[in-house]
C-alpha cells in the first residue's frame, strides 16, 4: 500500500488564463480486509490526479506494481491540470518500472488503475476518467448514479457478447480474470471518458474489493447520503468490510463543491 496525498475538505483551484476557479473536496480510505495478509492496493489523491491501483502478483509483486503506478501518476508535473497525453506517458513509465521489477526476482507483476484527472478542453474544466482493468469509477449527480468505466474483464466480455446476464456476472467463477493491466510486459491501453466538472458532482474510484462486496444500490445510497467526502470514503470501506471484506478495499472520492466561470 502506497498512498499519495491527504484528504481535503475544500480546495480552490484557479483555472488558467484567469478563467475562474473550481473548488473540490476529496477523501480516501483503504483497508487490507479480513482475508488478505498484505494490502496490495495503492492510491493517489492530490490534484490534478485521483486514482486507485489494485496490484496483482505473487509475494510483494502486486504491492510494488500498484506503488509504481501511483508514484508515476503522482509525479505528473502540472499547474493544476494535465493533458491526457501526460496520463498515458505516466502509465507507460510505470510499465517500464514494473518490467524492471519483473527482471529481477519477481515474476508476473501487474496492476489495475482507474481514476480521474483534471484536464481542460478549450478553457473549460473536465475530468478525464481513465481505466485499465476492473477497478471502477462511479458518477453521482443530482440523484443520478452510474458506473462510468467498463471493466476490462472476461466477465464483462461475456456480458457484452450476451453470453451471461449482469446478474450472473456477479457470481461467475472467472470474475477475477482481467483482460488488460499495467505491467505483465504489455503496453498500457487505457480507455478514457471526458466528464464536465459540474457543481454537486461526486466521482468515486474504487478497487474491486468495494464493488464485489457492495451492490450498486448500497454504493448509491452512501453517495446520496451527502456526508463529506472523507466521511463517505470511510463509510464505503466500512460497509465493504461488514459485508465480507474478502479483498483489499480502497476508495478515492472527489466532490465538486463549486464552479466559478468567468
Amino acid at each position, binding site marked *: 500500500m502506497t498512498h499519495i496525498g491527504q484528504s481535503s475538505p475544500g480546495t480552490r483551484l484557479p483555472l488558467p488564463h484567469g478563467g475562474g476557479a473550481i473548488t473540490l473536496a476529496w477523501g480516501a480510505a483503504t483497508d487490507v480486509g479480513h482475508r488478505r495478509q498484505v494490502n496490495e492496493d495503492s492510491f493517489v489523491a492530490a490534484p490534478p490526479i485521483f486514482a486507485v491501483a489494485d496490484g496483482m502478483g505473487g509475494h510483494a509483486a502486486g504491492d510494488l506494481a500498484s506503488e509504481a503506478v501511483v508514484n508515476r501518476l503522482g509525479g505528473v508535473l502540472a499547474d493544476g491540470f494535465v*493533458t*491526457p*497525453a*501526460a496520463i*498515458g*506517458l505516466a*502509465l*507507460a*513509465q510505470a*510499465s*517500464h518500472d514494473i*518490467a*524492471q521489477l519483473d*527482471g529481477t526476482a519477481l515474476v508476473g507483476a501487474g496492476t489495475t488503475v482507474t481514476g480521474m484527472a483534471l484536464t481542460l*478542453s*478549450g478553457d*473549460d474544466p*473536465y475530468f*478525464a476518467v481513465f481505466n485499465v482493468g476492473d477497478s471502477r469509477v462511479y458518477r453521482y449527480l443530482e440523484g443520478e448514479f452510474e458506473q462510468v468505466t*467498463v471493466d476490462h474483464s472476461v466477465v464483462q466480455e461475456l456480458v457484452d457478447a450476451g453470453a451471461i446476464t449482469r446478474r450472473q456476472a456477479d457470481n461467475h467463477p472467472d470474475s477475477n480474470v482481467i483482460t488488460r493491466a499495467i505491467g505483465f510486459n504489455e*503496453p*498500457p*491501453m*487505457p*480507455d*478514457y*471518458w*471526458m*466528464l*464536465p466538472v*459540474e457543481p454537486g458532482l461526486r466521482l468515486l474510484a474504487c478497487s474491486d474489493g468495494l464493488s464485489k462486496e457492495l451492490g450498486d444500490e448500497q454504493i448509491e445510497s452512501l453517495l446520496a447520503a451527502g456526508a463529506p467526502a472523507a466521511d463517505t470514503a470511510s463509510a464505503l470501506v466500512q460497509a465493504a468490510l461488514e459485508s465480507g471484506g474478502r479483498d483489499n478495499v480502497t476508495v478515492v472520492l472527489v466532490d465538486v463543491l463549486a464552479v466559478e466561470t468567468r
Partner: protein
Amino acid sequence: MASAFYSPESLAPGEEWRLLATDRFVAAFGPDTGMHTMATLWRIAAEPSLGLDALVAAVPTRGPEAVQSFAIAAVAGAGRSTVFVVRGGGCADVSVAGRMRRVDARGAVPWYVAELNEVDRFALGPLERSSGDLRPADADLPLDGGVVFGPWLGWARDVVASPPPRPPVPPAPVEQSAYDTNVLGDLGRRAASLTRHRTEPPATAPTPQTATAFRVGDRAPERVDAPVYVGRQPRSPRVTGPMLPRLVRVDSPSREVSATHIELRPTPHGLVLTDLQSTNGTVVRQPGSGVRRLESGESLPVAPGTLIDIGDGNVIEILAYR
C-alpha cells in the same frame, strides 16, 4: 504549413542520428539505434490509431537493442501544447513564444517528459549540439515524412517546404487567414452574428473543398483533429486510443440545447455531423440544398459553408482549413 527540416551533412557512422518525421511526430534517435528498431518505430508513428504513449513504449530501453538516447516530440495544431520526451543524451531545444529553452533528461529514467505551450520552433538531437537560432538554413532540406540520417532534426510551425524562405516568414496570423469563410447563407435571425463573415460571391463556381474545421458563433475557428462534442454540458463516450475528444460548451439559458447535442467526427473525406438524440433536434443549412432538420440520431456529411443550428442562438459554421 508546419514541417520538419534537417541538415544533410556527411557524418561518421557513430555520429548519425536517426531522424523521423510524420505529420504528428518528430523524433531523433541516437546513433546506437538499430534499423530493425527504426522500422518498428516508423510503423507505429505512421499508424493514426497509435499515440505518443505507444511510440515511446516501443523504444527498447533494455537489452542489446536498447536505445540510450532519443528526443521525441508530439506536435499539435496551433494553440495546443507540444509534448517532448527525452532520454539519455537526447535533448530538445525549443523556442517557446520566442524564448529559447532546452529540454534534457538530466538522468531521469527511463525518460523525461515536458509539455510546452506556444511552441513555434524546435530542434531535436544530441546534448552536445549548440542550439543555434532554430531557423532553417539555405542548405537544409525539408522532411515531410520518413526516416533519414543526420546530425539533428528541426521543426518550425511556419516553414515553407521549398525553397527555404529568406528571410523567414513571421508566424502566420492563423485566425484571420488560414480559413475560408465561405458562408453561403444564413439561418435568419439566429445567424445574424455571422453575417459579418459574408464574402462576395465567387465569380466562378467554388471548387469543392474538404470540411476540416468549425467555428461556434463568433469564437475563433478550430481545426477538427479528433471527435468534437458540442452541447450545454458535453461529455464524451468511451474512447480508446490517443485522440481524446474536444468538448465545446455553449450557453443555453432556456435549455433548448441538450447536454451533449451533436458530434462532429473527422474522416478522410471531411466532417460527419451526428445528432446525438438531442431533445429539440438539429437544423442544418447546407450550401445549395436549403434547410433541413436532422432526425434524432441521424448523421450527415457536411461541406464547408454549412450552418448547424442547435438552439438558443447557437450556430456552428463548417469551414475548410486552407
